[in-house]
């Protein structure tokens, strides 16, 4: 039993002390700062400004999730089922962005979309536009940047699902004369549904707490929940509100994760 203490306890104590305990502190703040009660929660859920941030976050996250999962599905299809050369090439296209820091990627989109960026310069050179288009500091840029970040994360659950598809079923459909399109829509797509659901929940969970990309590409024009929490701490200190919002976010994400685990638990049976 001594081994038990020496091996297992250190990390539990470490995380208990520096993560769980302070999180309980945050929860306490959410009920007590500035005044005891549920005032912070009712304010967060009734203040028009805060509500508009929550709605914007939900709207952007839904769009980003749909875009990311759709794009990831297409590229995963070729990564898993393409010919060997195509497979290696798509793998590079997925892995290189995946390992590059979120800051470099956000900066890449700034260079691409800003007023003197690549896209505006090309369009001007081609004579298609006179003055620069405003492509950054808005929701469009946030959606582009977040989707770019999240596509590789959506690829992994999709790839697992596609690898598990029984090849014989496809061959059978082919043998019975189904067209390629029909094989895809009526056989392959339904068989990979579990991967689509997994990828959707995963990407959505990641996107709701996202901070860096929206803050850089939104330029303060489209504040999301995470940036609002940051502002409540460092710009207009309102600890109770920030704490209440964090608890709400944690509960929402926890709920989605329980759904996700149920789903995979059922499939494992």
């Amino acid at each position, binding site marked *: 039993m001594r081994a038990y203490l020496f091996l297992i306890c250190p990390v539990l104590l470490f995380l208990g002390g520096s993560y769980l305990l302070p999180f309980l502190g945050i929860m306490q703040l959410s009920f007590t700062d500035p005044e005891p009660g549920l005032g912070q929660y009712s304010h967060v859920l009734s203040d028009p400004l805060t509500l508009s941030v929550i709605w914007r976050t939900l709207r952007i996250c839904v769009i980003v999730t749909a875009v990311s999962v759709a794009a990831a599905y297409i590229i995963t299809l070729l990564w898993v089922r393409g010919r060997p050369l195509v497979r290696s090439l798509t793998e590079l296209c997925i892995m290189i962005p995946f390992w*590059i820091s979120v800051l470099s990627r956000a900066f890449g989109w700034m*260079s691409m979309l800003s007023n003197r960026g690549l896209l505006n310069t090309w369009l001007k050179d081609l004579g298609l536009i006179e003055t620069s288009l405003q492509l950054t500091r808005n929701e469009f840029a946030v959606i582009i940047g977040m989707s770019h970040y999240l596509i590789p994360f959506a690829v992994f659950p999709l790839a697992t699902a596609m690898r598990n598809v029984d090849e014989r079923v496809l061959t059978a459909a082919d043998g019975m004369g189904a067209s390629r399109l029909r094989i895809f829509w009526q056989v392959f797509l339904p068989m990979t549904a579990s991967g689509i659901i997994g990828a959707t929940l995963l990407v959505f969970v990641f996107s709701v707490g996202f*901070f860096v990309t929206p803050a850089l590409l939104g330029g303060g024009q489209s504040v999301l929940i995470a940036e609002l929490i940051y502002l409540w701490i460092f710009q207009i200190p309102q600890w109770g509100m920030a704490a209440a919002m964090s608890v709400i976010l944690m509960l929402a994400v926890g709920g989605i994760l329980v759904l996700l685990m149920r789903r995979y638990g059922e499939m494992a049976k």
Partner: protein
Amino acid sequence: MTKLHPGRLATLLTALVALFLLMPLIAVVPVSFTSRRYLSLPDGKYSLRHYQALWEDPEWLSSFLTSVQVGVIASLLAVALATAFCIGIWMLRPRFSGLMTGFVLLPMVAPPVVSSLTLYFFLKKLSEWNSLIAYDSLGGVILAHMVMIVPYAVVVVMVSLSQIDRRMDLAAQSMGASVPTRIFGVILPNIRFGLLGAFFLCFLLSWDEIGVTLFVTSVETITLPRRMWMGLRDNVDPSIAALSVLLILVVSLLVIARALLLMRKERAAR
């Protein structure tokens, strides 16, 4: 039996997605050679001044060193904690091991901004007691990074433990080996590549970490991503383009080298 390969439409769409994924990485390259002080494309005049600035500015160098220091120390400690935990669970298979593992993985699944707020709150409180592990100090950043990377180390070490043969450990035990001998003589040598992988992953995560770092540092302890953030937020500094080009180059070379290595292994296996 011939495998059904994706058709032309899928290939075309994939090419578009691939272009979308690679475009911003390529867009950084021309910007890094601009001769101006602000984010722009070079109009005929190419210049290396931003690369030079990167090299000569002592602030970039000190941030680089801070990041390396934080990354190495946080990763070593995190891997040590994670390895002890995983070996404990693997050897003893205690009750509630699922619950304990779930708890350890918590910082990985919680929204990053919630973890950031929690760690900021914790380090602010610690600052009232000491200055070693405190807000905006090296110790504080190391602690915050450890919390964030421990779960990943646990996952990697668990996976590599699940692949070793339990009978080796049982044989050692039946021949009278003590617990330390079993750990240092049997288990650790068998998972050394897993440990190396865990360290490498932890270092990368710490090296790139920005969400939590933004909350727990301000002006004293500035990691490389933190300095990049400062350059991006206020007035976009093209030095960041130069730095990004270098980082993208390193990552691309590593990923391509790994792909080539795997291809060679596959061919050798055939």
